[in-house]
């Protein structure tokens, strides 16, 4: 232990003013502090967007409900979607990437620490701008407005005539600003991974977590930028009288759809790849086996990165493309199933024959595997264009993508929280509360989203604020809402676990899970400089080599 910690003269310990602590966090360029700020920021927005989801569910609980007005309902689903994607999922994944990548590759910080801080504050500003629209959306003469054009903001809804005031502008600028933040972070991650690895850490020895985040960053470069470009065009239309999406002057509403989904679909993979990264780290450790098929996993990831750039128009089957375009996008969308299937089988292969420890992180991983598979299967159903014509814009689609985002991404995120919380805080999360959290959330999730497929098949459209009685939707919607309440309860358990374990949790030590990647070689929480001596590695599992000098991995790789 002693050689791992350097005493820094004049570094203030306890007994500081809270303003000093605040100043330290606001001005920090440390990747670990920024990572935790990303995560905390995202958790706050998770609660806000969760409340918006609850408002939507309460309104749809039974037919002819008057809980909120149609206008408020529109704002709620717009803000829920926008917040969850841009200000919960993206920042929380960036937070983990920021925190873990330098530690995993044996670096002392990201390649550009100040760019890192700048990107975080851009993202933060974006979120504040979006929510300021509740106050400032109608200008000076009133509160009570917010973006209400859906998270995809289809033209011509966003035209001045149909979206007066400034709520759509807040939406545009918030996404533009946070998009620049995302691009900054992506550049930073790429430069860090390619240029900051410790001696011996070849590309083929990097943890899969690092590989997947590298591919994710590459995708951000070409997927988020089209949205930025489209937002600039929208601003030109709204402020300078341009005609990009103005059908009255020959502009095209379809072009916006293309531009939005050229961003929108790769975005899903930008979100799912880091969660694959979590699973690829956690499953081996809790199965007590190295990952099965490392090179194939890397190859499949790169393949997903490429294919996902050519599937966007499967969101647009109903606009009336010709049969060649329909076939093309059907085939490419289904092709995504191949590398994804490879991954699922590799994780199963890792678990196969292992001595599996069913602690909370592993429980969430198993939930992820099962649910992500089902989400993928409904995805293949919807990728088939004739099937999509039938069910597009119905609750079947809503159930499908929430299965991916909640059942996949959120479950993997919870696994990551239980797995890396000890490293970030030095304390273990409570296993007992963790089990409560897991089982409540699994039950709530399945009650909500399994059932939600059925009203979709029965024809219930998305984005309606209420519906007629007697269509057979009432009971189903009530069940969905009850499931949402159970999920909310599980989230409360989780938040309570995060807070109470920070003070009362069991001390974690360096390596509570007996894991193999470099972040577990330093104290928890790691010191500002990460590594007292820059490590050198000889295999994919440097800590295994250290713990088993008689049988190191480097002998076989």
């Amino acid at each position, binding site marked *: 232990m002693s050689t791992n910690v350097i005493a820094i003269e004049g570094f203030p310990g306890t007994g500081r003013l809270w303003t000093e602590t605040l100043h330290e966090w606001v001005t920090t360029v440390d990747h670990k502090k920024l990572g935790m700020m990303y995560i905390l920021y995202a958790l706050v927005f998770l609660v806000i967007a969760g409340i918006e989801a609850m408002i939507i569910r309460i309104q749809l609980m039974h037919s002819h409900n008057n809980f909120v007005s149609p206008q408020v309902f529109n704002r709620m689903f717009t803000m829920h979607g926008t917040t969850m994607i841009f200000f919960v999922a993206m920042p929380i994944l960036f937070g983990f990437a920021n925190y873990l990548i330098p530690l995993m590759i044996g670096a002392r910080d990201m390649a550009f620490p100040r760019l890192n801080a700048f990107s975080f504050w851009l993202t933060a500003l974006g979120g504040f701008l979006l929510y300021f629209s509740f106050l400032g959306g109608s200008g000076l003469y009133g509160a009570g407005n917010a973006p209400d054009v859906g998270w995809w903001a289809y033209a011509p809804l966003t035209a001045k005539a149909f979206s007066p005031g400034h709520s759509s502008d807040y939406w545009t600028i918030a996404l533009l600003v946070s998009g620049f933040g995302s691009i900054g972070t992506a550049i930073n991650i790429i430069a860090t991974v390619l*240029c900051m690895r410790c001696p011996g850490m070849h590309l083929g020895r990097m943890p899969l977590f690092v590989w997947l985040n590298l591919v994710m960053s590459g995708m951000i470069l070409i997927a988020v*930028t089209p949205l930025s470009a489209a937002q600039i065009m929208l601003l030109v239309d709204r402020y300078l009288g*341009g*005609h990009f999406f103005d059908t009255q002057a020959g502009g095209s509403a379809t072009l916006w759809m293309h531009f939005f989904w050229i961003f929108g679909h790769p975005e899903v993979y930008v979100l799912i790849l880091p969660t694959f990264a979590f699973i690829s780290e956690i499953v081996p450790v809790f199965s007590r086996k190295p990952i099965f098929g490392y090179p194939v996993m890397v190859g499949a990831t790169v393949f997903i990165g490429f294919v996902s750039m050519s599937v966007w128009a499967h969101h647009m089957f109903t606009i009336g493309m010709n049969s060649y375009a329909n076939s093309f996008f059907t085939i490419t969308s289904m092709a995504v199933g191949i590398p994804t299937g490879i991954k699922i089988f590799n994780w199963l292969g890792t678990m196969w024959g292992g001595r599996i420890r069913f602690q909370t992180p592993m429980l969430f991983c198993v939930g992820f595997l099962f649910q992500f598979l089902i989400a993928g299967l409904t995805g293949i159903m919807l990728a088939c264009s004739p099937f999509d014509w039938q069910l597009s814009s119905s609750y079947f689609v809503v159930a499908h993508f929430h299965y991916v985002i909640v059942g996949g991404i959120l479950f993997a995120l919870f696994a990551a929280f239980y797995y890396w919380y000890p490293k970030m805080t030095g304390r273990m999360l409570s296993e007992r509360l963790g089990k409560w959290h897991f089982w409540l959330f699994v039950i709530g999730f399945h009650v909500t989203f399994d059932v939600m497929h059925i009203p979709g098949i029965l024809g219930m459209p998305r984005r309606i604020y209420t519906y007629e009685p007697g269509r057979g939707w009432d009971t189903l919607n009530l069940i969905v809402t009850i499931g949402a309440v159970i999920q909310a309860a599980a989230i409360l358990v989780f938040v309570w676990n995060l807070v109470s374990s920070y003070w009362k949790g069991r001390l974690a030590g360096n390596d509570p899970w007996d894991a193999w990647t470099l972040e577990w070689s330093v104290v928890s929480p790691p010191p500002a400089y990460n590594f007292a001596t820059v490590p*050198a*590695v000889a295999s994919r599992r440097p800590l295994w080599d250290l713990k088993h000098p008689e049988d190191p991995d480097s002998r076989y790789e």
Partner: protein
Amino acid sequence: MSALVIPLPETTRPWTLPDRGKVAMAALIIAESAIFTIFVVAYLFYMGKSLSGPAPRDVLETPVFYTVCLLSSSITIHLAGMFLERGKRETFLSLWALTFVLGGLFLFGTGQEWHRLIYDKGFTISTNLFGTTYYSLIGLHAFHLSAGLVMLLTVLLFGMAGRVGRGQSNRVAVLSLYWHFVDAVWVVVFTVVYVLGR
């Protein structure tokens, strides 16, 4: 646990990694290319779809002289970087200043064209689809060019203060990557707006 140092089988080989400045600039260029691609696609998609005049051939004049200026600035900045690497600071500085002047001339040319279009022809961004796509594509390029000029000027001022030497040649090389990108984009924009578009 002691510090993590595992004896390496290949310690004899030196551990070299790519330069982070160049990698980051390459990543930025990829991202910027995607933004320009979307604007170029919009331009091509809306070509000839304006519901009212004027059409490109009525108002546009091909800026041959200024294009030559911009493209030759790529050569001068490359030579400037070469001389800096060899430690010839005087030559570097004059070539760098020439690059800045050439880039400035191009920006002046764009300004002149816009002035003519707006004040003489009454053709603005809200006139028709052509105006919308033309001003945003050219404007996006001019914006990137202006950002480049600001950075060129910064290096120029530091250079005149004697602060740019061989030690900075790596950073100067990163900046010239950006400048080459702005030039390359102009080739695309020129082809689309002045060749295909007319």
